[in-house]
C-alpha cells in the first residue's frame, strides 16, 4: 500500500506535458501558489463586490425564512400544488439542486480515481457547491410535507408507536440516499481541506484566525505519516463517494420510475437522471467558476483547459440526456400504450408545450455549439450555454413532474398547475441560501486546493528561488 501511495505521489501530472493548454500558467512556484490562494482569505482586503454579493444573498436568504415560516404557519396550500398535481416546484427544485450537486462529487471522486489532474483547481469549490446544493435540496423534502414537524417519521427513529418507515417507498430510499450523500460529501470536503487549513493556521496573523483554523486543522503537521493517512482517507472516501454519484440520482429517479404515472414509469430514468445531473452540475460549476476566476484573477489556476474539459463533459452528458428524450418519445410510441402515447402528445401539443420546446432548445440544441473548440474557449459563450443548460435542466424537471401529473389516466380529473408567489419565493430563497453560503466559503476557506495545486507546478519551477 505505501508503495502504491508513493507511486501515486510521484506520478507526473499528465497535464504538464500539454504545453499549449497548461493546467497552471507558467511562472508559478510553490510559494506563489500558496501566496495567491491564501491571500484571498487572509490578507487581501475583502472586496466591495463581496459585500454587495453577500448582502444581496443574505436578504434573499431571509425571503426563504419568511416563506418557510409562512408555510409552516398557514399550510402547504400556499403553493400552487393541487389535485392532480401533488408535487410542483418543491420537488422540481429538490431534484434540480440534487442534480447540481453531482458535479462536485464527480470531480472529487470519480475524476480523482481516474487520475484526471485537471480537476485539482476546481474540485474544492465544486465540492463546496455540492454541499450547499444538497443543503438547499434538503429543505424541500422536509418542508414539502403537509406536517413538516412530523417529517422525522421518515427516519427510522425508535418510537413508542412501534411503527417504522415503510421501506418499499422510494421516498425512504431517498432519505437514505440523500443523507448518505450529504454525509460523505461533507466528510470528503472537510478531509480535503485539512492540509490547507493547516497552511492557513500557519499563515494567519490574527489570533482569532489562528484559533479558528487551528481547531479546524485538527493538529495537522504535514508529517509523512499524516500525508500517508490523508491519502488513504481521501482514496477511501473517493471510493465511497463514487457509487454515490451514480446511486443518489438513480434513487431520486426511482421516485418517479417506481410510480405508475405515464411520463414517470420508465426504465430509462436512472441513467438518464444521472447524466442529467452531471450535465446540470457541470453547467453550474461553469456558471460559478467563470465569474470567480475573473474576480479573483485566478485565470492562472482555472485555465482555459479546465473550462474546455468541463465543456466537453457537458457536451457528452448533454448528448446522453438528448438520447433519453429520444428514447422516451420512442418508447411512448413503441409501447402502444394509449396513456404513454397521450403523455408524449400532451408534451408536444398540450398546454405546456412551450415549456417542452424550451427544454429541447436549452438541453439539446444549445449545447451543440460546444462541438467547436472556438466556442468552448470563448468564456462568454460558455457562460451563456451553462446558464441555458441550468434553465433547461430545471425545465426538464418541470416537464417530468407537473406535466406528467396534470393529465394522467382519467380525463375527468385533469387539471393545471401554476406556481404561486410562495413557490417562487421559496425557490429564490434557496438560491439566496446557496449564494450566501458560497460567499462565506469564498471569504473564509481557500477556494482552490493549495497543496494540490502545488503538485501541479512543474518540478523545475517548483523549487524555491534562491
Amino acid at each position: 500500500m505505501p508503495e502504491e501511495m508513493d507511486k501515486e505521489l510521484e506520478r507526473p501530472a499528465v497535464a504538464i506535458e500539454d504545453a499549449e493548454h497548461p493546467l497552471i500558467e507558467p511562472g508559478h512556484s510553490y510559494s506563489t501558489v500558496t501566496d495567491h490562494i491564501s491571500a484571498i482569505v487572509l490578507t487581501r482586503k475583502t472586496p466591495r463586490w463581496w459585500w454587495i454579493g453577500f448582502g444581496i444573498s443574505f436578504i434573499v436568504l431571509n425571503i426563504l425564512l419568511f416563506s418557510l415560516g409562512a408555510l409552516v404557519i398557514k399550510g402547504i396550500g400556499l403553493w400552487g400544488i393541487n389535485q392532480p398535481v401533488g408535487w410542483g416546484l418543491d420537488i422540481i427544485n429538490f431534484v434540480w439542486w440534487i442534480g447540481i450537486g453531482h458535479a462536485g462529487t464527480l470531480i472529487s471522486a470519480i475524476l480523482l480515481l481516474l487520475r484526471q489532474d485537471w480537476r485539482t483547481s476546481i474540485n474544492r469549490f465544486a465540492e463546496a457547491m455540492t454541499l450547499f446544493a444538497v443543503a438547499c435540496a434538503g429543505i424541500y423534502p422536509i418542508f414539502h410535507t403537509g406536517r413538516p414537524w412530523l417529517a422525522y417519521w421518515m427516519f427510522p427513529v425508535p418510537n413508542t408507536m412501534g411503527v417504522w418507515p415503510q421501506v418499499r417507498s422510494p421516498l425512504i430510499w431517498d432519505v437514505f440516499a440523500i443523507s448518505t450523500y450529504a454525509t460523505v460529501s461533507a466528510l470528503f470536503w472537510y478531509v480535503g481541506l485539512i492540509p490547507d487549513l493547516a497552511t492557513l493556521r500557519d499563515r494567519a496573523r490574527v489570533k482569532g484566525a489562528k484559533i479558528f483554523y487551528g481547531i479546524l486543522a485538527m493538529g495537522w503537521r504535514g508529517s509523512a505519516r499524516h500525508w500517508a493517512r490523508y491519502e488513504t482517507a481521501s482514496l477511501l472516501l473517493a471510493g465511497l463517494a463514487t457509487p454515490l454519484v451514480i446511486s443518489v440520482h438513480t434513487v431520486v429517479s426511482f421516485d418517479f420510475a417506481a410510480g405508475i404515472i405515464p411520463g414517470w414509469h420508465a426504465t430509462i430514468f436512472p441513467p438518464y437522471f444521472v447524466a442529467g445531473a452531471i450535465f446540470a452540475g457541470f453547467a453550474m460549476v461553469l456558471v460559478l467558476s467563470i465569474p470567480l476566476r475573473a474576480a479573483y484573477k485566478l485565470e492562472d489556476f482555472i485555465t482555459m483547459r479546465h473550462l474546455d474539459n468541463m465543456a466537453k463533459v457537458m457536451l457528452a452528458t448533454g448528448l446522453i440526456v438528448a438520447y433519453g428524450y429520444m428514447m422516451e418519445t420512442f418508447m411512448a410510441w413503441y409501447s402502444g400504450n394509449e396513456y404513454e402515447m397521450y403523455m408524449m402528445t400532451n408534451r408536444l401539443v398540450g398546454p405546456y408545450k412551450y415549456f417542452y420546446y424550451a427544454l429541447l432548445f436549452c438541453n439539446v440544441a444549445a449545447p451543440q455549439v460546444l462541438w467547436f473548440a472556438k466556442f468552448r474557449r470563448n468564456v462568454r459563450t460558455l457562460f451563456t450555454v451553462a446558464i441555458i443548460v441550468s434553465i433547461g435542466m430545471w425545465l426538464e424537471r418541470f416537464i417530468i413532474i407537473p406535466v406528467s401529473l396534470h393529465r394522467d389516466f382519467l380525463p375527468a380529473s385533469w387539471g393545471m398547475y401554476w406556481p404561486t408567489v410562495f413557490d417562487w419565493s421559496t425557490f429564490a430563497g434557496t438560491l439566496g441560501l446557496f449564494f450566501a453560503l458560497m460567499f462565506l466559503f469564498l471569504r473564509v476557506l481557500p477556494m482552490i486546493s493549495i497543496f494540490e495545486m502545488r503538485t501541479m507546478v512543474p518540478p523545475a519551477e517548483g523549487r524555491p528561488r534562491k
Partner: protein
Amino acid sequence: MSSQPIQSNAPLDLDAIRTQLSSVQGPQFWRSLEEVARTPEFQAYLDHEFTPGTSDWTDPVSRRRLVELLGATLGLAGLTACTKQPPEAIVPYVKAPEEFIPGKPLYYATAIPVSGYSDGVLVESHMGRPTKVEGNPEHPASLGSTDVFRQASILTLYDPDRSQAVAREGRISSWVHFLATAAALRETLLSNRGAGFRILTETITSPSLLAALRALLAELPEAKWCQFEPVSRQNVHDGTRLAFGEVLHPVYHVDKAEVIVSLDADLFGSGPGAVRYSRDFAARRKVGGASESQPKAMNRLYVVEPCPSITGGIADHRLALPVSEIEKFARALAAELGAVSGLSAPASSQAHAWVKAVASDLLRHKGAGLVAAGAQQSATVHALAHAINTALGNNGATVSYLDPIETASPQSLPELAREMESGKVSTLLMLGGNPLYSSPADLNFAEVLRKVKLRIHLGEYDDETSAVCHWHINEAHPLESWGDTRAYDGTITVQQPLIDPLYNGRAAIEVISALAGRPGVSSHDLVKEFWRARYKDASAPDSFRSAKDLGADSVLPQFTLDEAWQKQVHDGFIPASAGAGKRVTLARDLGAVLASAAAASIFELNFRPDPSAYDGRFANNAWLQELPRPITKITWDNAVLLSPAAAQKLNLVTGEVVELRHSGRVLRAPVCIVPGHADASLTLHLGYGRWRGGRIANNVGSNANRLRTSSQLWSMSGVEVVKTGGKHLLAITQEHNSMEGRNLIRSATLAEYIKKPDFAQEGEHAVKNPLSLFPEYKYEGYSWGMAIDLNACTGCNACTIACQAENNIAVVGKSEVLRGREMHWIRLDRYFEGSLDNPTIHHQPVACMQCDNAPCEVVCPVAATSHSSEGLNQMTYNRCVGTRYCANNCPYKVRRFNFFLYGDWESKSLHGLRNPDVTVRSRGVMEKCTYCVQRINLARIEAEKEDRRIADGEVVSACQAVCPAQAISFGDLNDPKSRVSKVKADSRNYGLLTDLNTRPRTTYLARVRNPNLELEKA
C-alpha cells in the same frame, strides 16, 4: 350605555315637565329631566341608543379600527389569564331516556319538506344530536333514498348564519314580546274583521297548518291568504285545468312505463317524487343481473329539453329544443297520435323524424307509455301531454291524477302586490319564504312592501325580506319542530323534531296559533291535537280531505288515540294515505283552446331551479354550493348556459360576462358553454345573487329574479345578449369533457348487448396472472367490494353529498376549488360523447377503488396508508405526514389532501354536526373514501356480540344508502350469495384501468342504451 350627560344648550322648561309628570297615571320612570321634557337632543340620544362611533363596530373594520383592535387584542390577551373558567358540571343521566345508549346512534322518522313536498327521512341522532339524514325505507316517496337537498339540510340546521333571535326593527327582541304584539294585533284584527291583513306563505301541503290557517281566516273574513312559491307548480295545475277542466296532481308510475317521453320534465332531478321516479326508472334499466336468463328488456326514455339535465343525460334519445319549439313538438306529437281532435301539426322540420319515431313507439306501447311535461313548461304543453296520455290509455296505468296535494290560495302574488301598491294592505304576515328576493322583478316587491304598515316575517335566515320587516321571527328548522306535510303521491308524512330548537325558533303553525288567540302553544301540541281530533271525529267536515282517506279507519280499530299518534310518529307517515287516482275525461274543446301556437324568437331565456341552490333557499348551504352541478360541474356560481353554436355566434367563451337585457331590465352574468344545449335558448338558474343570505350565499352568482316577470316566470323570449368584455372565474371541477378515446365508461345498445353480453370485457387488458413472486394474499374473513351500475346512475350527486355528511368532509370555498382542491371523496365524472351539439352524456361515480394492488400503499414512506385483512385500503390520518406521493401515484385521482386547515373548527354550532364515528381531519393529511369503515365496524360489533358473521346488507355505505337509483351495491365478496357478488358476476361487470394491475375492488356495470332503431339510423 354611556353615562355621559346629554349636552343640551336649550334651557329646560321645568313647568312643562311638572305638568307632564302630574298628568301621568301609574308608575312612570324617568331617567332625567331631559327625558321628561322630550327635548330633541334626548330624542336623538335615544335614537342613537349607543354612543357615537359605535356604529363603526358594525361596519366592516376600517383600517384605523383594525389597528385599535389589534392593540386592544394584544393588551387584553394578557387578561385572560386573570379570569377563571366558569365551572361546567357534567351530570350523567340519573334516569336515561329509553333506548339511549351513549355511542350508539338512534334513528327517528321525520320529514324535511322542500317547497311543501316531503320525502320521508330517517335521521341519525348521536346523543341527541342529529348528524345524518337517510331515507325512510318504508316511505313511498323515499324507499330509503333521498335527494341532495335533504342530505344537505342537516348543515342548514347547524348553520351558524341562521337567524338566532326574534328581532324587532333589526334589534334583538323576544318571542314573548312578539306574543304581546300578536295579542294586540289580534284585538285590532278582530275589531275590523281582518281588513288589510294578508298572509303570504310558501306552498302549504300540511293538513294541520292548513287547518290552523283556515281557522284563523274564518275568524277574519276580510283577511286574505296568498301563496307564493318561486319554483311553483302553477303550470302543472293550469295544464290539468286546461285538459280536464279541474286542477289535478299528476303522479307517474315510471316503473310501469315501457316508453317514457319527457317534454323538458326533469323527472329524476327536481320536483316532487324525483327520488321515487329515479328508483322506478332504474329498476327497469337493470338488464341481465346475476342470472343471465332474466329478460333482457328495458324501458326507453326520450327527452326533449332545452338545457341538459340529468334526466336528459340518462335518456336513450335526447333532443335539444328551445322551449318554444318544445310546444311545437308536443303539438306535432299530439297531432301525429291524433290525441286532440282538430289540432293541426305545425311543420317542424327539425324534429320531424323524432315525432314520427316517438309517436310510433308510443303507439306500440299503448297503456305502457308515459308522456311527462316539465313543471316549467307552459300549461299548453301539459295539456297536450295529458291528452296524449289519455288517448293512448296511459291514464291509470302509468299516470294517475290525484286531487291537488297543495291547496291553491285565494290570492296570487301579483294580486297581493297590487293591493300593497294601492295601500290596501296594512299588515303582512310572511310565513317563510323570501319574497323580497325571489319575487319576479315586475312586482317591485321591495317597494310595495314598504307601503305595508306592519310587516312580520318568519324565516330561517335574517334575509333580504326580514331586513325590511318590523318583526322577524326566527323559524325552526324542520328537524327542530313538529309538523306534517305530504309527499308527491299525497302520503301524509309526519315531521318530528330531533332536537330542541337551537335558537328557540318557531314553526309557522305556532305563529298562526299566536294570532289565533292561543299564544305559546307548542308545535307538538298543535299538531298532535289536530291529529287526535282527526282520529276521534272521522267524519269531521273538512274541505281538504276526509279523515277516512287519511288512514283513520285502518288505524283506529287497532289502536287507541294515543297509540295511533305514536305509530304515526314512529313510522314517519300514515300508511295508505296516498291520494287515489281519479277518473278523468279530456275537455271536449281542447283542440280549439290549443289552436294558437306561441311565436318563437331568438334567445329565449329559460329560468330553472338550481340543482344546488334551488330557489335560493339553500344558497347559504356550503355543501350544496360546493357540489359540482350535475352537467356543468360549476361550483359556487350560476351562469348563463348556452350551446356551443350560440357561443360561437355571439363570440363568447366560458367565463365571459354578458349583459342580458329585456324590457329595460339588465342583468350581468358569466356564460358557460354546455354541449347539448338548445341553440336559440339560454338557461339561467335561480337562487343566486343574494345580498343578505348569509356569509356563504352573499355575492355568489347573479340574481335571475331581476329579469323574471310574473307573466314570464320560466321562459322569456327576445332577450338581448350583450358582450361586456368582462371576465368571471367560474370554479368548474371538471374542465376536460372528453374520454380521449379511453375505455373508461363502456356502453352498448341493447341489441349489441344481447348479441354479446360480455361486451364490457372486450379490449380489456386486465392482468390475469398475479405477476408476483409472492403467493397471493388470501382474504380469509370478509372481503369487501362494491359495484356501481352505470346503467342506473343518473348523476344526481346524492352520493357525493351523503358521503360529505357521513364522513365530515370539509368545504374548501371557491378560491380553493379554482385551484383544484375540492375534497369530495366520491365525485361524478361526466363525459360527453359524440357531437358537440347533441352529445351522449355519461356519468361515472368515482371513489377510492380500494385496489388490491394499490399504487398508493407502496409509495407511502411512513405506512400511513395500508391494506387491511379485509381488503380495505386504509388511511391512518394520525400517521400521515403529507408527502402527497400516494395521491400522485393514484391512477384514479381519488385521494384528497388538506392543503390548509379546511375543517371549520371555530364555529361552535358546527360541532354538533360532526359524525362522532369519523375523525375530523386536520391540516396536512391525506384523506379518501374508506368504504364507510365506521359502518362496517358498527356492524362487526353487533355481529360479534351475537357471535355470527355480518349478514349481507347489514353494512350499507352512505353512498349506497342514498342512491335513488340503487346503482351501488356493497358487501362481502367472500360470500358468493351476497348481492354485490351476484352483481359482479354480471357480464357487464368491468374494472376501471385494470390494465394497470391495480385490481380495484370497486367495479362498474357497463351502460346499456335502448335506442329506437328508427332514430338511430337517422
